[in-house]
């Protein structure tokens, strides 16, 4: 694993907000995918996530396409699927998903939103890309069954290196 020079949140209580939705999935499916993706990290760390519906959250989540105002334009279908920013104020922690992609909830068609989001939230929390091909934080997308997903050891080591283990386990 690797980090963004040890950049991390100063609190373990983080907020998130879903600013808009992709037309590829129902609202409930997006909500569930995002919630589960955050829980992947909460399970193995002291981080806790609270959803807010207005105002600025630590992690602002949006679906967008092309040039969307952060100097990191998306590139249409394929190639870049999403990106997220390391912990910090303003745009720090935010996750953007390329709405030129086809996201899915449970089918193997398109890109599974839960898997993409779980990877991006790793960045939101302070993890950079891993060079372990089995890690969630490996930069390329590979499908795995979301129903049986468990966070790979490299990613657990990474998040616990930054925040420590889950005190409730």
């Amino acid at each position: 694993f690797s980090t963004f020079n040890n950049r991390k949140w100063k609190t373990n209580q983080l907020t998130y907000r879903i600013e808009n939705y992709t037309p590829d999935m129902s609202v409930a499916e997006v909500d569930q995918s995002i919630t589960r993706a955050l829980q992947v990290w909460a399970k193995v760390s002291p981080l806790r996530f609270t959803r807010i519906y207005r105002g600025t959250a630590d992690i602002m989540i949006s679906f967008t396409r092309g040039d969307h105002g952060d100097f990191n334009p998306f590139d249409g279908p394929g190639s870049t699927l999403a990106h997220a920013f390391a912990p910090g104020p303003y745009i720090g922690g935010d996750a953007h998903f390329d709405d030129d992609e086809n996201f899915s909830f449970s089918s193997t068609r398109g890109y599974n939103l839960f898997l993409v989001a779980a990877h991006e939230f790793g960045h939101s929390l302070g993890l950079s890309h891993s060079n372990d091909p089995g890690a969630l934080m490996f930069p390329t997308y590979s499908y795995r069954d979301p129903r049986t997903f468990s966070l790979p050891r490299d990613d657990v080591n990474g998040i616990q290196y930054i925040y420590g283990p889950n005190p409730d386990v």
Partner: protein
Amino acid sequence: LPITPSKEDEVLAETYLKRFYNLTEETGPTSRQGPSQRSRKVQEMQKFFGLKLTGTLDSETLAMMKKPRCGVPDVQIGH
């Protein structure tokens, strides 16, 4: 396998290396010593992905560049 990359592949590689490996435009006189910046960036990418370090756009390297991926650079660059 050694291949001659198509024009599209060259453009793809250029965009990929600029975006994810901080490849910059080379200006000024070309150095006669050592590999080019692009070759070094290709090697950097190959090293990260555990590919054979050739510094050239072989088929494995191009295949990796064509995979869908996260838009965050693999190599963290300064602000």
